[in-house]
């Protein structure tokens, strides 16, 4: 099978999953106990308001019609209208996507900066004390709730240590954005890097035992060059995959961090919408995140197949 038909087949495989994702998002509203419209509008809602919402959500229609209508609107890019902001969800998301993308991007950079050196240090001297020390990092990383780490960093950098970094807000201009993203991105990076360290260490150990590394060493190339030019470059391929596969985990980590650092991103919007019981926004964000994760997983597979010529397409 060649690369093109592999990509095509992966795209085809996406369709049933995307269909399932839309089903779950659609049925969310039917899981709400009692009358969803009444639950959403609160106890003081007038019968007219409840009836209006029923009509808006199509709850007076048969289930199959409701789903077809939902899909029809979805395929036209219509995610519904927010109950709280009086704006359509798509516009709201476009307004809020900037900080979230900044956070995801900078987190990825920080996570790689943390994970690559630590994993290399650990893998080049397996079972040594430095390997053991690096293996302790994931234990702490996994145990620390990211939002709490965020609060501790706010305490340290916002109140002490000379206020080096802003502890809230999105900043102005490019420099302002980067400066204000340092603490939140570092927080999420601490949360995601244990997984990267583990996988990169394992794949580096694998690579360092392979024949071509022995050949490189026997040619008299310095150990430093063997590790950096030969082993790490190969090990990183697997890390790209791990990072792609964990994008869902990463996105989950950014949600609360946006709230802690008062970043006006999609995660903070979702949490605010939950507290305001704004169903359409919660549904829209859940759907968009899931579709994004599916697409990123696809892109990861394709990038992996491009980076690593050993990938077979069967």
């Amino acid at each position, binding site marked *: 099978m060649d690369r093109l038909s592999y990509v095509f087949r992966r795209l085809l495989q996406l369709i*049933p*999953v995307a269909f*399932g*994702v839309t*089903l*779950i998002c659609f049925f*969310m*509203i039917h*899981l*709400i*106990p009692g009358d969803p419209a009444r639950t959403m509008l609160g106890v003081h809602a007038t019968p007219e308001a409840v009836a209006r919402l029923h009509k808006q959500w199509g709850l007076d229609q048969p289930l199959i019609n409701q789903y077809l209508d939902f899909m029809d609107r979805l395929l036209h890019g219509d995610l519904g209208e927010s109950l709280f902001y009086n704006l359509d969800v798509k516009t709201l998301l476009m307004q809020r996507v900037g900080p979230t993308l900044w956070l995801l991007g900078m987190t990825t950079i920080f996570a790689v900066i943390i994970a690559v050196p630590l994993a290399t240090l650990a893998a080049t001297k397996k079972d040594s004390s430095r390997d053991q020390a690096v293996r302790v990092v994931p*234990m*702490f990383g*996994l*145990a*620390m*709730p990211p*939002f*709490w780490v965020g*609060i*501790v960093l*706010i*305490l340290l950098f916002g*109140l002490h240590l000379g206020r080096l970094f802003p502890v809230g807000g999105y900043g102005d201009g490019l420099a302002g954005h980067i400066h204000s993203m340092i603490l939140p991105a570092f927080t999420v990076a601490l949360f995601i890097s244990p997984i990267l360290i583990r996988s990169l260490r394992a794949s580096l150990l694998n690579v360092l035992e392979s024949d071509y590394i022995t050949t490189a060493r026997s040619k008299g190339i310095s150990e430093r060059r063997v590790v950096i030019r030969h082993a790490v470059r190969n090990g990183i391929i697997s890390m790209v995959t791990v990072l792609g596969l964990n994008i*869902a*985990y990463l*996105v*989950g*980590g950014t*949600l*609360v961090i946006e*709230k802690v650092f008062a970043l006006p991103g999609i995660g903070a919007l*979702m*949490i605010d919408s*939950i*507290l305001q*019981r704004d*169903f359409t926004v*919660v*549904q829209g*964000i*859940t759907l968009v*995140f*899931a*579709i994004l*994760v*599916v697409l990123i997983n696809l892109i990861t597979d394709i990038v992996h197949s491009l980076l690593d010529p050993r990938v077979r397409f069967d």
Partner: protein
Amino acid sequence: MAGAAASPAVVEQLPAIPVERARGFRNRWYRTPSFVAGLVILGTIVILAVFAPLFARYDPAAQDLHNILKGPSSAHWLGTDQLGRDVWARLIYAARVDLKVGFLAVLLPFCIGTVLGCIAGYYGRRFDTLTMYLVNVVVAFPFFVLILAMVFVIGPGERGIYIAITLVGWVSYTRIIRAEIIVAKRQEYVLAVQAAGLRDSRIIVRHLLPNVITQSVVFAMSDIILTIGAIVTLGYLGLGIQPPTPDWGNMIADGQTFITTRWELSTIPGLAVVITGIGLSLLGDGLADLLRPE
């Protein structure tokens, strides 16, 4: 067929692997440092939580508005919060709530995921295709996004946490068990009991499950850490355990308002989460070492 002559009673004695493993466990657990360290850390927290009324001198919900935001003293070891409640009492009563909810919220998906994984892996075909389709759909959602959406739909509180985490969490166990069963069902001891005519349910429960459950149990340890993390995060957002019941998450949220004057109000409950997590991590690592066949 050779197996057809063997009676089920004889076949019962065939696989000896789990027994060997159990014996190894009994002889080696105290020589596995991470297991012992995890046991000590978690054991201490569990004892404090279970016997909280003995270790706390105050009711965790009792307010004393004349003594708000006081620092540590002999009367209040960790001081008092914004309503004059004893922080130490709240901390150990919160351990009670968070550990209980964390454990139960993992137990349900563990059981459901294991059953589905066993059936999908053993029988394959349509049930497997359907189960794996469901797994692929659920893993498409970011874990915490789906949990938040479910809690939003079902409503905050303990019940919402159980339902949301069960609906999302079963997939990991199904994937692990299914993969292990697919490999194990082709091994000779399984073929032998199949040939002896044992019922499928008996083969799965008595012969396959004891051999494939290890990885799930080890995963459950790290899953409890993630689940407690999720519960505490929900509590922090006001969507988890509802006040006045103490929870590490709502304690951190309450304390954050006073971070400039009483920073320990939000850092100490967080440290409790970290220590619990480390204890569970060590226990999980130790368990993985102990259960790995020698």
